[in-house]
């Protein structure tokens, strides 16, 4: 399964980079989302994956007794998901606004800083 996930991560990165290299701003944002997901999975996988062992302390214990999945990557990814949502939301709205002002979503035509 790890091999499969590694391939998925590689695919997400490749797709993300490819999309970022496009001229359309919408595709660029989609590329960012793909990259973000790829990075999350990467961290997740590198923390080693374990089936059915969530990092929850049992009702009757004061600390983890049995084997458990690593909580640190999970905490990191949770933060990353939320922050990347903030970024995406802002970027999406910014694209909408920019499109209304300059009438294009082609980044090559957004070069002029003056007289828009």
């Amino acid at each position, binding site marked *: 399964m790890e091999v499969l996930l590694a391939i998925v991560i590689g695919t997400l990165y490749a797709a993300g980079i490819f999309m970022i290299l496009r001229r359309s701003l919408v595709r660029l944002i989609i590329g960012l989302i793909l990259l973000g997901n790829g990075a999350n999975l990467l961290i997740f996988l590198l923390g080693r994956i374990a089936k059915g062992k969530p990092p929850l302390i049992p009702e009757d214990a004061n600390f983890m007794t049995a084997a458990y999945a690593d909580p640190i990557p999970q905490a990191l990814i*949770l933060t990353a*998901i939320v922050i990347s*949502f*903030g970024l995406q939301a802002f970027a999406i709205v910014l694209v909408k606004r920019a499109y209304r002002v300059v009438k294009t979503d082609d980044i090559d035509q957004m070069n002029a800083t003056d007289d828009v």
Partner: protein
Amino acid sequence: MLIALLFPFLAAALLALPVREKRDLIVRLSALVPLGLLSFFIYNSQQTPTMQRNAWLRDMPVSLDLYFDGLSFLFILLITGIGTAIFVYAGAYMKGHAYSQRLMAFLMLFMGAMLGVVLSDNLIALFVFWELTSISSFFLIGFNNENEASRKSALTALAVTGSGGLVMLIGFIGLGEVAGTYSIQEIIAQRDAVVNHTAYGWITGLILFGAITKSAQFPFHFWLPGAMKAPTPVSAYLHSATMVKAGIYLIARLTPALGDTPFWNQTLLVLGGVTMLYAAFQSLFHKDMKSILAYSTVSALGILVFLLGIGTSASILAASVFILVHGLYKATLFLVTGIVDHETGSRDVSQLSGLRKVMLPVAIAGLLAAISNAGIPPSFGFIGKDLIYEATELKGHLLTALAVLTNIFLLVAGFLAGWKPFAGPLQPEHQKVHLPEMAMWLPPLLLASLGILFGLFPQLIEKTIVAPVFQSISGTAFTGHLALWHGFNFVLLLSSITIVGGLVLYFIIKPSTALNSFIVKSEKFGPKVILTGIANGFDLFARLYTKFFQNGYLRYYIIFIMLTLIGLLGFEMWHYTTLETNNRLATEVTFYEGVTIFILLVSVVIIVFSQSRLASVAALGVMGLAICIVFVFYSAPDLAMTQFTIDTLTVILFVLVLYKLPKFIPLRFTPHHIRDAVIALGFGALISILTLEVLTKNVNREISEFYAANSYVLAKGKNVVNVILVDFRGADTIVEIAVLSIAAIGVFSLLKLRLPKKERIE
């Protein structure tokens, strides 16, 4: 002494404070600072040198040790004495100017830096002050910052003197390392070790490079005429009396340490000789008073380098005297030029004449300065010139001939600038020109009178100034006497030839546009053109470089970054990756997992290749949910919930915004796409291999174990992930919430922003 040194810097900071009222008064009062310093240093001057030690950086060989001897004293007299005259003059000159405070603040800063140069005993401290003079000079030359020529000259001056300073720093460090100390006095004490060291030639060459750029020696002289774009008080102060003499100071200061070797003497002799003759010749062809003075200044600096290059005690004496002679008459001539320019609006000697009828005191100052410059008895200049001839006479006829020729040209230049505007009939358009206020004409008149006074009574300065300077440079006591009259001898003959020849030439030469354009044309092949060419080439290179790497296209930046990463990582991995998988990676793939991964991969393909925006966004949602399920499989319930919520929100937001956006540009398979695809796939493959490689290594779970053991014990929470976020790393989470709030405010305002009609484009 340290406080005195730091005082101008404080005054500069105070002067720069903006005030609304009484600006002129403040500017005029600032002249008290150089006057105060002048009195302080005269009061504290002693026959024996004093050293004041002040620590600066304790762990490095950098200190603010101040060494006060005859040589420092002479330069301090120039800096603060002429400085006082300049500050008084500038206060009147800049009256009512909007930025007069700024000018005075920079002048003050410069004065402090210059005092630092001549007082520092530590080489590094000297370098810091040295560069500070270059920087303040840059701001002063570019004072009229709305004038392009002004800005360009300022840059040229900074480029030449600044790079010279940097080269000099290398020399200083070499000298410091060879001698094992950065104190100039201690270096002088072990002169033999330095001079016999194999690196002596390099060190001396590098240091002299700094000195000759600063003192505008050929072929770096061209920045000085350009620097005349500065307001006249600045030209008078920096570019004739003080800053350009910093190079002379440095050469004189280091003469006991590095001097008296064939390399030192011959280099200086050639540089100074070429400069003095070349620049003196050039000065004949200009009609702008300031240009004439600029070239004659370059020439005078050449004479000083030349004299220090001869290196005999006669020539050192001549240099000691000539520094003072030149400072007095040249500052006067500049100030006179400033008055003429200020009152008539012209500096063209071919147009100006007869101004003595409207401004007599100025004319007297100009004439006195021209006389001292010419070396006509009984001026101080006559003594100076005699000493120069006495020094060259001992070295053969060639050098003497050079000196005589230079002095003839300089004499003409002095009369052109100092007397010609005042002689002859008054031009009709200048009938209404009037004498400026006393604060402007008194300083030049005083300086010019000193030039005559010291000539008549050389004993005034013989013991107090000249003897200590001579002692500082040569290391031996001064035994002779300064006098006007030496009897009938060869030197007197040379002086007479100079005066007669010069006066004859003065009446032959008529400054005119034709003459001027001739010399301008000849400059086409000068060193200035070569160095400007180099500068332009550098500029062009920088522009091409920027255009290539900073081209403004996001995708090229990313491609550069990606290719670099692929190159570096790929190279490393090529060498170290074994591509072995061990049994830890062999977790079985169940049917559900297989299906989830398949859905994930299919959705990615749809996202990338779909022609429809909606299909892309929908596939994005599917992909998010598939990842969500992966989290569920592998024991991360919190992540699954977050991912689910966020994924849904993103898709909704996208759909809401999407109908306002243009359709996708259809994806075609052009070479560009293939290039991008290759880069993207390459990077993806690299990440995959990297991941697998990392998975074969052991993982450190120390921190995880801490959280697992302490979540409940310390923080009373059983969901370890949640406890980490809200308790152990609670501060981080607060910052995260702040970031999200900022994003939310941004989103809200972007959606709600309504521009007023005139700013709206739609």
